[in-house]
């Protein structure tokens, strides 16, 4: 399978042409994204194990999640993925104005996501639906219930952290785009920032049904 890569004309040039450098950067980013996937896999594995062991507790606890907010957040993130994909499209065509505008919209969507997330967290805090030993919600008790909230907070917390980092990265990219650094020849940072943002979206696509709907 590796010989196929070797045969491609792309690798025949030794000196790092811009094209080759972009190829390298993109590949590095994909490798980094795969480490992110495996980082989350630990939590997905824990979720799978405890979901399997405590089906009743998890199903009951997941009904305490705010599905409407979660669904809204899904739409928000999907839409932000669209805007960031369009930003990359325009960055490649050297349209800085549209790129910056679309990136700004993406960051705004990220902010909306975080605000909605904070709203959910607030409600869970007030109701005592908290992880592990802090769980004190009187309305629902039993094996596995506090474990659901442990995983809920760990998974959404880590994801939220990634959203914040993604917003930071996109803001930095937008600032560079505003200075007109990107054009037809070079727009790699926009693309890499976009890849990161898509991954954040991709993980949420799985978190939403697992935590809210099952």
């Amino acid at each position, binding site marked *: 399978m590796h010989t196929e890569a070797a045969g491609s004309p792309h690798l025949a040039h030794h000196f790092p042409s811009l094209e080759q450098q972009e190829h390298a950067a993109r590949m590095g980013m994909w490798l980094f994204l795969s480490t992110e996937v495996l980082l989350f896999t630990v939590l997905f594995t824990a979720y799978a194990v405890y979901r399997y062991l405590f089906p009743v507790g998890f199903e009951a606890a997941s009904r305490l999640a705010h599905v409407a907010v979660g669904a809204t957040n899904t739409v928000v993130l999907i839409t932000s993925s669209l805007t960031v994909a369009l930003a990359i499209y325009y960055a490649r065509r050297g349209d800085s104005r549209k790129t910056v505008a679309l990136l700004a919209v993406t960051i705004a969507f990220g902010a909306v996501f975080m605000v909605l997330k904070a709203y959910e967290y607030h409600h869970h805090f007030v109701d005592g639906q908290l992880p*592990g030993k802090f769980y004190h919600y009187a309305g629902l008790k039993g094996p596995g219930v506090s474990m659901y909230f*442990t995983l809920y907070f760990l998974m959404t917390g880590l994801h939220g952290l990634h959203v914040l980092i993604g917003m930071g990265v996109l803001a930095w990219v937008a600032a560079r785009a505003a200075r007109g650094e990107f054009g037809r020849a070079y727009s790699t940072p926009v693309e890499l920032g976009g890849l990161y943002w898509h991954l954040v979206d991709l993980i949420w696509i799985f978190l939403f049904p697992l935590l809210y709907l099952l």
Partner: protein
Amino acid sequence: MSPSAASEAVYNSPNYLNAEAGIRSWLTTRDHKRIAVMYLGLVVAAFALGGFFALLIRVELLTPGPTIMDAMTYNRMFTLHGVIMIFLFMIPAIPGVFGNFFLPLMLGAQDVAFPRINLFTVYLYLIGAAIAVWGMIQGGTDTGWTFYTPYSTTTVTTVAPVLLGAFILGMSSILTGVNFIVTIHTLRAPGLTWMRLPLFVWAIYATSIIQVLATPVLGMTLLLVAVEKAFGFGIFDPARGGDPILFQHLFWFYSHPAVYIMVLPAMAVVSEVVQAFARKNIFGYKAVAFSSLGIAFVGFFVWGHHLFTSGQSTFASGIFGVLSMFVGIFTAIKVFNWTATLYKGAIHVAAPFVYFLGFLYFLMFGGLTGIALSTVSLDVHWQDTYFVVAHFHFIMVGATIMAFLAGLHYWWPKMFGRMYSERWALAAAVLVILGFNATFIPQFLLGNMGMPRRYYSYPEQFWPLNVASTAGASLLAFGFLIVLIYLVTSLVNGKVAGPNPWGSRGYEWNTPSPPNVLNFPETPVITRGAHEYQDPPAEATHAH
């Protein structure tokens, strides 16, 4: 490609050591060769520290009761030893030093794909090491390097800094892996097809895949332990429905492949050494190359053989047990092919070759005891005894350190332009190999007798073999000391090496010693595989 073909200019231009002067030029360098030298200093320091703790442990075990320290100190000591040796030495040693130095040289490249990230990994290493060591001095973690829950989440000692340190070291390891994979994919010289890659590159490639895919799992798992200990979220807490075996699964999903992160680079080094000193191309290039990938791949399927006695299901133990047999095959292929490489060779028994022989011996016996350990019912007796300790020291200290020393001696003239004293080197090699056997063969027998590991005191029947092991350890330490002394003095008064003192035909020798800053005066064009020792040399005939 031959030195004679290289332009005159490159020999007159400054080498990488002299190109710039001053501490600052080192701390901000992006030259892969200088980064490698920094790694060399760091990992040797870590090895000395970890080795010092190992000696203290052996002295404590000289008598059945308390000898020189109390139980708490002892428990901290073996944790320190494990954490330092694994995270600060074994994992970064060969990729960090030889990978960084020789990967671009073997690819005909000027540097790795992301030089700035490469420098960043050194700083991550330093930060991670500082946090971990500070934590161990401050609180003194007593969990063992395995951090098993619920012990690690309930112990009174400080665990969080060590977990955080290991996490940061993991990031360093991941970035190194990403860097190497991208470099191998994108920066090969013209004509350097995948099937012409030096075997060193193949094995480093396989190592990097494991680093990238396994390390994040460890990082997250350790963070979960830290969260659990700090906040009581209960994810591994048995009293809250948590499953301690889940921790073991997650931990070993990294830590078993991590064993291959430690041994694959060793295989990378000796594949070069055996060809250079037998003056012969490898027997079965494809088999050796692809078995590295095989190890990397199958190595991910076998972690459960650490859990045979943990309460894991019989079914799962069967799956992990049978898959473990397959991972042994890839190592067997390599051993047979290295041995067959000697056939019809022209063997020169110099220090690196002696270390190669030591490596072959330790890898074979370490590997076979590994197969014995994954024979499920035998493992039940040996699990968590000194047999396991001896087994993984055979692989890690035996095989990996032999390979590290083989590589260090083989490439020393290339890295620093000086020859070391061959006579001292041979004497030290023999001493190290003997001392190593004397240390760990008694530990195999202790394991057979049933002495569990991490024992501070022990019943009298284990006494004689423990004395033997401690005696061996002191011999081993003495051997390492000699190596350190003659290598350091060779920097000052060693004979000037010349570009290729071994007559090796590895690509990396087509540079002056030490190499100059930009490696190659012009991009080399590769027309033959590395280590072809036929006459006339292949490059002389490639014109037609």
